[in-house]
């Protein structure tokens, strides 16, 4: 009969910890996945008397030109800062100075991706405009 191999207590604990890290990681990933998927999007109802031009509202930027309403996420595509200022027909990110036109297209870096355009849903009954962000 082969003599059983002896391992030190320290080594034993290290191995146990190593093995335990796998189920812990699985639990962590599963748990976070569940939490993220259960976080619902925020519903924003646009005001009925939207002015022409740019309006800032919570997490969105609204651009109304005549009857066309476009809604963008106010999150800068560079590093996620909230954009809430406009100057000389440009939307400006106050964190790093990226500038976008009113169509959400980047015109001055560092951002190079356009702002995320959100789908505007119109209620057939009330004509109410809604976006989810």
């Amino acid at each position: 009969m082969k003599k059983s191999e002896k391992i030190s207590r320290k080594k034993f604990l290290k191995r146990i910890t190593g093995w335990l890290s796998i189920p812990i990681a699985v639990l962590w990933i599963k748990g976070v996945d569940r939490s993220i998927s259960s976080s619902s999007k925020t519903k924003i109802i646009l005001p009925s008397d939207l002015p022409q031009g740019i309006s800032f509202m919570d997490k969105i930027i609204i651009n109304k030109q005549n009857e066309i309403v476009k809604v963008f996420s106010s999150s800068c595509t560079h590093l996620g800062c909230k954009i809430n200022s406009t100057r000389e027909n440009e939307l400006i990110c106050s964190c790093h100075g990226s500038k976008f036109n009113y169509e959400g297209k980047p015109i001055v870096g560092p951002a190079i991706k356009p702002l995320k355009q959100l789908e505007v849903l119109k209620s057939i009954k009330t004509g109410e405009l809604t976006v989810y962000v």
Partner: protein
Amino acid sequence: MSKKKEKISPKMYSKIFGSTFGHIAFASFFIALLSGIFLSIFYDIKEPFDSISMMLIANPSASFIRSLHYWSAQLFMILIILHVWDHLRKSTEMQVKRGVWIRLSISILTVFFVMLTGFILKADADSIQAKRILETLLQDIPLIGSYLSFSLLGKGEDFQLIYVHHIATTTIFVWIIIVEHVKQIWPNVRTLLYSLLPIILLTLFYPSILHSNHEPIIKGPWYFLGVQELFHYMTYPEIILWIFIFLFIMIVLLQKFDDNNRLRIKIFWLVISIIYFVLIIIGYFFRGENWEFVVPWKNNYFINSNLNPINNSANYFTDFNVQNEIPKIMGEREGCLYCHSDMEGFSPSHDPEAVGCASCHQGNTFTIEKSLAHSNLIKIPGNLETANLSCGQSGCHPGIKERVDKSIMNTMNGVISVNRYIFGETNNFDELHYITNIGKSAADTHLRNLCASCHIGNEKFEYGPITELSRGGGCNACHLNYTIDAEKDLQKLSTSHADTSIIKFHPSLDLNISNNHCFGCHSRSGRISTNYEGWHETQLKEEEMPSDSLHRLLEDGRVFTFVEADIHHQRGLECIDCHNSYELMGDGESYAHQEEQSKIMCEDCHFTHSPNYVNNSDLDSESKKIAKIRGFDFPERKYLITKKDSIPLINTFIEEDNTPYLIGKNSKKKFNLNPPNFICIEGKVHDRLTCNSCHTAWAPQCVGCHTEFDPNEIGIDHLTGEETKGSWKEWVGEFIAELPTLGVMVNSLGEEVIETFVPGMIMTLDKSKFNGSEDITIFHRLFAPTVAHTTSTKGRSCKSCHNDPLAIGYGRGELKFSKSGKWEFQNKYVLDEHDQLPEDAWIGFLNDIQGKGTRTGARPFAVEEQKRILTVGACLTCHDESSRVMMETLTDFNKSLDKVSKKCVLPVW
């Protein structure tokens, strides 16, 4: 791998008062830990920003503990960095086991994380943006990014998880590492006391401030400003993340390298650190709103920072007795309203219950201690210098300050260019300038002495309403209004040693823009404000003024006489009824001359075609906002728009039958907008004439001007307000109110039109006495286009143009048509020695000797045009202007010439 080196004695480390950097860092950590425990008593995770605000406003002890926590944490981090450097310098990395070294390396990251979470827990605008950036960066890590982000920062704008990590996870980890490293659970009492001293001093003299959420400048914590600066240049910020991870791994694996490579890595880190430190300096001092470059003394962030000595008076020892609730404005506590709660007189849009005090006045809202609250106070908001911190904030009137900056009322482009042309300093009328940037040349000094105060950016220094003597004031120039009560309060203030608490009536900032707002500047130069009301300047002195209703004394001592008011004034229209926001505040473009910036034209309101309009639902946001405030915002309304740039005229409406009308913006009176008379639109012979050319009743004109520099005169530099030794002076020969001269210019739509002109300037300019100038006298015969604002319902007569030498440009005198068909002109004013034209002429009689216009393309009538005008004039010598014959000429003049009778005498040239 190199051999282990000889153990280094603690004596060899850098020390302060006998303690190593590491020991002081441990002591600072301990102070931060203890102060953090106490701070948590006052900190409310549900309303973090509000709870910190209340500590600052009403709880000096809590505020002290917060500052103690802040400074101990900063000192801890700085000393940890110094301690690490001390270790690396002595190459002690080889003296620790590998596992310990990895844990120590990770603990450095943890220190930065605990610092950053502390910054985020302030929950102000800086913090929330920092959290968003950190989230985005973490999510960029492949595979585990989103899990890390969610697990470290939580979801949305909830701070609970960050709080737990700040006070527990990371703090405990750092403490365990410290204990393992130092082999002590507590710091030495002596080191603790030594460390406490600088922390308390910093706490006392540099209390930790809180940025308002309405602060336009967003910056991270000072130690991450280098990263923020790098991000400004980096399209792919994840590169920074990977570079950082690479540098970190180099440190973790440092023990694996040989002596030479370890040294190289350390030198590399040192260089990186020095560069990073420079980037922090740039980020802190040289970056302003929207991360734009700005010099430190104009950087509003620095003004409101922890390190500005102005902010460095603590209120820890004030015995507060806060009896009432501190009001919340736009979600933030505003200490100002604790004392100034019962102020009256505001326009609805500026009601302090809606916008507070600090939106306009800045100051410190997180205190109720007067001297602290009033630090960095903008006493008179609205001046362009500080407009970005007050009226022009992104949450209030964004973009307007930049428009006004570029507007002609601020730049004075036309004035500067024409003035420099006259002084022989440029040949271009269309240069773009900025009045505050002009130099000290003869031309620019002339403006500084005589004209430079009339720009809207001229700072208003003193309280009080806009008067005839006011110049500039930024937004105040148009929007500031004092009620009688507010004026009485102002008088009280002047006698009560500036005790502002006695003030109950605040002036209003509103849209009630009266003619008086324009009057100060516009009663000068073209004098359109006085013209509009019918007043013409005389050369009478105050004591010579007859005491009758036909004379008026202005506050500046000038005496005016009544001629005839503009028909719009007679009917009750004010300046603001025609002029709109895009003209008065600019439209964001730079223009060389005033008429280029103007949008409104007579034909925008007086037309025969179907109206050009915009529906209420299609109004731009600015017009919509103004229409709403003025009570003109009705969903079914249609508004006229200007021919130039389609600007909505929000006080003009169209009835269902297409009849347009106008409502006075202030008076709310209704005015019909009548179409032009048939004579204005009959035929095509007068197509080029502007409405102005016929309907201007009179225009102020001067003859025989002279400008000279007097080296002994004490003058004023109106840009700096300083006295100057030597000043430019002007003399005028005569002021005359008469029909203007006509000429040709290219309008802002690019069309060549007949417009009204006045002498501007026919003058001699003596530069001989100006510093260093050559002995030179310049003569100019320049006519300037004018819109005199003296409109009359009845246009000028046909003869007043076709038979009048002043109208054609010959100057005053007698213009006769002889029976032999010869036109003859006898001038009234003598011929000028410089060009042999009469003193008041623009052009020689039927010859090519001519002066110039003050605009590119502006000119007097060419000889052929003069002949055509005078041919009609010949007919008018016999035929009445309303006769059938003359009416027929309006349709086709050449056809009428074919029908002339034998009695008719046509001009012979």
